[in-house]
């Protein structure tokens, strides 16, 4: 047991000790026995995963090759569901929307968060927690409340339009016209997740030593330069992490657009022009409105592949940069 506590985790430091363990089966067995508590400690996760985690995705895979509406007997249809997903323009519309939200929410949202984190880190010493608490508060609020407030603020006669009118601009039908709807959702998403990303970045920034900045300053670097040359490169792992998380989040978007548009005609399909329809909403609609459970399962696997691909691209893009 004693050495069990020594090895930190799978960082380079632990490579050595891990290596020693791999030596022989006899050793391993003893190591397993010695670490029986560790297995016990991690077992809840794996038991729950075995019971609740493994079956659903596998069953989805199975379902995706069948036609099933619960009431009628299941019918095997080969790849027909997949073919249908791929040839339905409404699905691609939804998919495109997901990517549009990456462009409209993640793309501006993450740099904004980084910039705010940078400002907080470099310039705000007093009252930083006050700022952070304010910025973070949307994260801890329920999506129902958030969507409700936004739908009223962005109502045709809501406060936002009152503001526009006050400065002499035309009111906008925020929730009834395709692009304004997208803008509203993007604002909601940026607002909602800004604090989360700021805190993650701030944690990353604080591990950058102040001496680096000091040295740069002595060399005559501007704030902008030190941001570009010191902050950005050093914070790349965090950037990667948040970019992946944010991308995955955007591809799985459901509750916000669902709630924002649920009061409208064509309920469940993203409102006017399907402009807030996402893949997950399309899936939900196929399964729980149209009872095409096999088809919905195929949609979920197509989504899965897209998410994997996005993660790979992210890894490649930021990962390589991080290695340099």
């Amino acid at each position, binding site marked *: 047991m*004693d050495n069990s*506590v*020594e090895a*930190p*985790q799978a960082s380079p430091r*632990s490579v050595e*000790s*891990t290596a020693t*363990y791999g030596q022989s089966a006899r050793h391993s067995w003893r190591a*397993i026995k010695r*670490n029986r*508590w*560790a297995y016990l*400690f*991690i077992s*809840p*996760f*794996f038991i*729950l*995963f075995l019971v*609740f*985690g493994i*079956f*659903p*995705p596998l069953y989805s895979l199975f*379902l995706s090759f069948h036609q099933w509406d619960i009431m009628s007997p299941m019918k095997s249809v080969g790849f027909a569901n997949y073919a249908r997903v791929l040839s339905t323009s409404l699905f691609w519309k939804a998919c495109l929307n997901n990517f549009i939200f990456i462009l409209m929410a993640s793309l501006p949202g993450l740099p904004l968060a980084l910039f*705010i984190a940078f*400002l907080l880190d470099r310039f*705000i010493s007093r009252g930083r927690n*006050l700022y952070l*608490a*304010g910025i973070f*508060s*949307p994260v*801890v*609020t*329920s999506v129902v*409340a958030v969507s*409700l*407030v936004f739908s*009223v603020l962005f109502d045709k006669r809501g*406060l936002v339009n009152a503001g526009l009118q006050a400065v002499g601009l035309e009111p906008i039908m925020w929730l009834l016209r395709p692009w304004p709807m997208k803008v509203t959702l993007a604002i909601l998403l940026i607002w909602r997740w*800004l604090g989360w990303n700021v*805190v993650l970045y701030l*944690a*990353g920034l*604080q591990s*950058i030593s*102040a001496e680096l900045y000091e040295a740069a300053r002595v060399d005559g670097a501007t704030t902008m330069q030190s941001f570009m040359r010191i902050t950005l490169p050093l914070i790349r792992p*965090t950037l990667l992490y948040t970019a992946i998380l944010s991308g995955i989040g955007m591809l*799985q978007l459901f509750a916000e657009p669902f*709630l924002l548009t649920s009061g409208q005609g064509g309920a469940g399909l993203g409102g006017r022009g399907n402009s807030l329809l996402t893949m*997950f909403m399309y*899936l939900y609609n196929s*399964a729980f409105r149209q009872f095409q459970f096999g088809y*919905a*399962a195929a949609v*979920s*696997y197509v*989504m899965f592949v897209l998410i994997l691909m996005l993660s790979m691209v992210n890894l490649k893009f930021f990962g390589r940069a991080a290695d340099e």
Partner: protein
Amino acid sequence: MARSVTHYLRLHPGTVMVYVVLGIMTLVIVFPFYWLTISGTHSLSGLMGRFPPPLWFGGEFWVNLQAILNRVPFFRSYANSLFIAITSTITQLFFCSLAGYAFAKYDFPGRKQLFFMLLATMMLPAALSFVPWYIMMGKFGWINSFRALIIPGMAPAFGIFWLRQVIIQTVPDELLHAARIDGAGDFGIYARIVLPVILPGLGALGIMTFMNAWNDYIGPLIILSDVKKFTLPLMVANLSGWGGSTVHLQLLGAALATVPMLVVFFFASRQFISGMMAGALKG
């Protein structure tokens, strides 16, 4: 961490500007909560029937509250949400810290592989399990039951990943060594040495967990059908319609569900945020 900020403390005009700009931004960010708070105190026509909409409190708080209580068992949903959130938080903190500790400080055979598996499960999008999960809950007889909302999520991969991070960064091996030499058992070390040290991290994760459970919408949406079992978000969403537009009631319901949590969060935010950062990846 011990950054020298001294020269910034002299009120550099640039710094002042940053304070002001960030201050305005923060106010804009919290504005929707302010507006949520005041909006539920107006009558429907006081809210939607006039333009521009109100910016200050109205006098209809009690009337609206009474209307909500006549319509739905609102406080019951408060209790439901509290129950689910507290139970989830306690079980998750316990199981996640155990596993996080094991992954952080034990070097057992298969650790890398198992940890990789755990991370891999985080990659499975929820959408993939959506339909079968629902059917499964049906088979278990857990539809319309809180169990479906608590038990499957008792040991989430994210929490384990995150607490492992916290333990690696905050629990020195020497401490564990010493305890071991003193003859402490595995669970004893966890309970008496590790837990107290990671308390801030636990607090942060606990708040996140609590808030997630408190705010969860999709899970209850597909699981709960009995209004008496509704959680707050479902109840707020459900507070509408029949025989009268009720957006003002919904707003009040949302405010009652949200504002107390925000106040609690505000007071705990310092600890929360530093705890959050302890578990975050460092550059």
